[in-house]
């Protein structure tokens, strides 16, 4: 792995470790402060397991007051703080620093209030995404954003990253589904933003904080909107003989006025890989495969599904299955959900990219990626959230070969640069973190970045909260930007990633 530039280490802080640890114990129970090597090792990395660094100490506060006191103390003593939820993030947003306190929110694991009257749930940030749905599903409700790691990822982390998921095409991402947060600023100030009302007055601080990757404050409470489950959900599994046909079909479905709940696409390489891995029974003669999911009332879904299949036929589809029950629908998804482990089984290592492009450029970018694959002589498999133009190319390589690693990094950076060139974005849902930090200058100029840094400075004057993330340190627009998985040693190998 290439050397990663990190903020300069404050040796004074490092030398005062034992003093700092004893001080932290004044704010929370002794057992909540970890400082021995074997205790803090589990916190050395997050979902981007290629980078590892043990922090100075780990503190696991139990309530907002403790978080506030810890942050106030660190602010006064110039100690850096890295907030962390479940640590499942794929861009290294929770990577510790040698001279920083890692502030874990694992003990904030309770749902505080289920309010069916106001259609919301007030929860602590350490509760998992799926935990919220589990708490309300007995009354037919659910929480809409569904990142693939929803079994393990925390809602606080979702707020920090503005997480999306397969269904964000219709239901939006985290920012469109939360009503309020309680947040502690770096100077210890506790603030409530929003609540149980729609929108808020004054500056949209909720919108600013959501997706700020833990740089502006530590979330200690979240109020999320819950929705009634749709009455009917059906899916279509459609194969196309060419990439263009598949891409055109996506555009035609959207421009016909249909907004599917989800619209996914896989290329030939991934169809083969997942079929070997999960025996999903995908068609062999398809160059690209699409899963279109529709939800709503029964007759509406049936009608839309017919419309989708007509559009697919007009775009030369060469295979089509429509789900008639939940079992069939889930079977369509089984291969798609096995995409990441399937790639893990095909090569010693893979990199997962996360770029966004306009939907109409899908076949174009897929062709470019395939050309790059030939240029670098590295295999690639592609999974797309096609409905919202979010792509996850998986580059396969052998990390023990230094030259292959270097080529993979170049390959990945070229894909993301191509996304920006085609009017897309560097990251659709994984966040910038440390991973795509140096690529920020591809998307933004100095004035854009300076404005963002000014906001950061206004709320965290000494740049102590999660420093070294999101904004370029080198400003050389280097060739980084991927998730590196070595021999299945992903931090969470069992979590589906899609």
């Amino acid at each position, binding site marked *: 792995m290439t050397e990663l530039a990190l903020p300069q280490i404050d040796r004074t802080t490092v030398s005062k470790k034992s003093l700092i640890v004893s001080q932290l114990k004044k704010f929370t129970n002794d057992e909540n402060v970890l400082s021995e090597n074997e205790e803090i090792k589990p916190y050395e990395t997050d979902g981007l397991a290629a980078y590892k660094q043990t922090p100075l100490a780990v503190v696991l506060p139990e309530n907002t007051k403790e978080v506030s006191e810890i942050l106030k103390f660190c602010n006064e003593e110039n100690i850096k703080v890295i907030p962390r939820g479940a640590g499942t993030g794929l861009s290294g947003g929770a990577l510790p620093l040698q001279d920083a306190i890692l502030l874990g929110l694992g003990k904030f694991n309770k749902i505080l209030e289920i309010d069916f009257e106001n259609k919301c749930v007030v929860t602590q940030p350490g509760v998992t995404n799926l935990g919220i749905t589990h708490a309300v599903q007995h009354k037919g409700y659910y929480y809409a954003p569904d990142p693939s790691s929803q079994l393990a990822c925390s809602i606080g982390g979702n707020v920090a990253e503005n997480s999306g998921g397969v269904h964000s095409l219709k239901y939006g991402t985290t920012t469109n589904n939360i009503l309020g947060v309680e947040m502690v600023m770096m100077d210890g100030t*506790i603030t409530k933003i929003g*609540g149980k009302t*729609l929108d808020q007055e004054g500056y949209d601080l909720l919108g600013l904080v959501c997706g700020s990757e833990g740089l502006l404050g530590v979330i200690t409470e979240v109020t999320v909107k819950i929705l009634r489950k749709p009455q009917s959900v059906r899916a279509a599994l459609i194969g196309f003989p060419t990439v263009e046909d598949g891409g055109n079909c996506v555009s035609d479905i959207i421009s016909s006025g249909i*907004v599917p709940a989800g619209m996914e696409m896989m290329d030939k390489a991934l169809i083969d890989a997942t079929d070997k891995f999960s025996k999903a029974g995908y068609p062999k003669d398809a160059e690209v495969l699409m899963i279109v999911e529709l939800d709503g009332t029964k007759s509406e879904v049936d009608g839309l599904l017919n419309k989708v299949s007509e559009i697919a036929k007009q775009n030369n589809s060469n295979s089509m299955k429509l789900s008639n029950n939940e079992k069939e629908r889930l079977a369509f998804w089984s291969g798609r959900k096995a995409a990441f482990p399937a790639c893990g089984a095909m090569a010693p290592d893979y990199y997962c990219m996360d770029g966004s492009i306009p939907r109409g450029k899908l076949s174009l970018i897929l062709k470019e990626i395939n050309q790059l694959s030939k240029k670098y002589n590295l295999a690639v498999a592609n999974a797309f959230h096609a409905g919202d133009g979010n792509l996850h190319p998986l580059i396969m390589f052998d990390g023990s070969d230094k030259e292959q690693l270097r080529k993979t990094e170049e390959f990945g950076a070229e894909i993301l640069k191509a996304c920006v060139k085609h009017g897309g974005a560097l990251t659709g849902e994984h966040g910038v973190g440390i991973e795509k930090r140096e690529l920020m200058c591809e998307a933004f100029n100095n004035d854009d970045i300076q404005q963002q840094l000014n906001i950061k400075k206004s709320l965290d004057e000494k740049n102590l909260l999660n420093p070294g993330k999101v904004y370029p340190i080198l400003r050389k627009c280097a060739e980084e930007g991927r998730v590196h998985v070595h021999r299945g040693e992903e931090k969470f190998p069992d979590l589906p990633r899609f």
Partner: protein
Amino acid sequence: MSTEEKKNSQISLDSETLSPSTEKEVSEIVREIYSKQLPIEITGTGTKKVFGYNLQTAKKLSLSQLSGIIDYQKEELYIKVKAGTPIEDIEKILEENNQELAFEPIDFGYMINGQTNKGTIGGYVACNFAGSRRFKVGSVRDHILGFKGVNGKGDIIKSGGTVVKNVTGYDLSKLISGSFGTLVVLTEITLKVSPKKQSQITVIVYSDEIKKISNLFDKILSSSNEVSAATFIPEEPTHKNYEHTKNKIFKFNDLDQEGSFLAFRIEGDKRSIDERLKELKIELDLSNFKSSILDVHQSVPFWKKVNNLELFSGTKNNILRAVMPPAKCEAFSKFLNKNYKYYIDWCGSLFWIEVLDKDDEKINKIKNFILENSGYLTILKKSENFDFQDTLFTIDSTRLMISKKIKGSFDPKKIFNPGRMYREL
């Protein structure tokens, strides 16, 4: 740059209203006023001038010349426009392509002087006041994919883009929505557009009982039948100084004008509407109420009237906008009932209230009730010669402190719309 060009680019600040026609000119003007520390009022076509505190600035920066559609990609579901583009222009091109802005821009013209006047998209984004479909599709801010603008130092900045999934850096599109022009001068806005639904109907349910109405709102919110708007129009108070407009505004063949009513809208293709209507009739126990149905030809104009505050057309009185948690709908309605002219939108969350009196005490009583019940209040329009002493917008001291810091990071010399939202900002 040659000497000649330099000379040409010198911005004159002589006139009272500066009307730049390019982003570069906006930037140059702001650089000038930044160096001279000259506060400025930012306007579009002036339709939302009455919102917030009156400004005392010597100069105005008008964006009315910064108008036009830059890029419309129907298949990509976005439209990129210059900030001073009239909303009607955007709606027209979308209509031709069977698309729309899902947040239903409100025409505040009726409330302000009795006639239609939608204003510009920049002004609309600056307020973030979404229309009747809000509880279903999100607010204005949820439909802004990206923007370009000029900060208080004259730097041209951008955030977001044209794609829906984008987590690159802070989401400033949200922050500038509802900032009333106090952070940036918007120059370019990219909006998410949505396919228009094939058809719609509106169901009218007649009842004067607030408990029943609030119960119906709750059932609508709990339903998976995707109701896209729901309002309650109560009988007007008898006080002679309230103009009785209800029966003039809501004049439809299939609407009985007697008493109060709740109305909700179902959109979609015909088959889906029929199916959902059937289910909603059962879910809402509609057999226990007197009800009627407005077909698409009545439903469309009906919601325009609700959305555009036509009930308050040309009023001289104060107009308050309150947003409450939906479960507080009944309590707040009871508090207001018979004393004020008001109606409820957003399926029980949004209250538009007309207040006669020019005294602080009455408004403060309403404000206190709202705050005690976890809502917020905006005094949107003040009656003439009335200077409400308390803040027009709701805020607590911590959020105000944070807001001041953020303001400083965009506009360090406080030259954009100073005091428009909060006197200190």
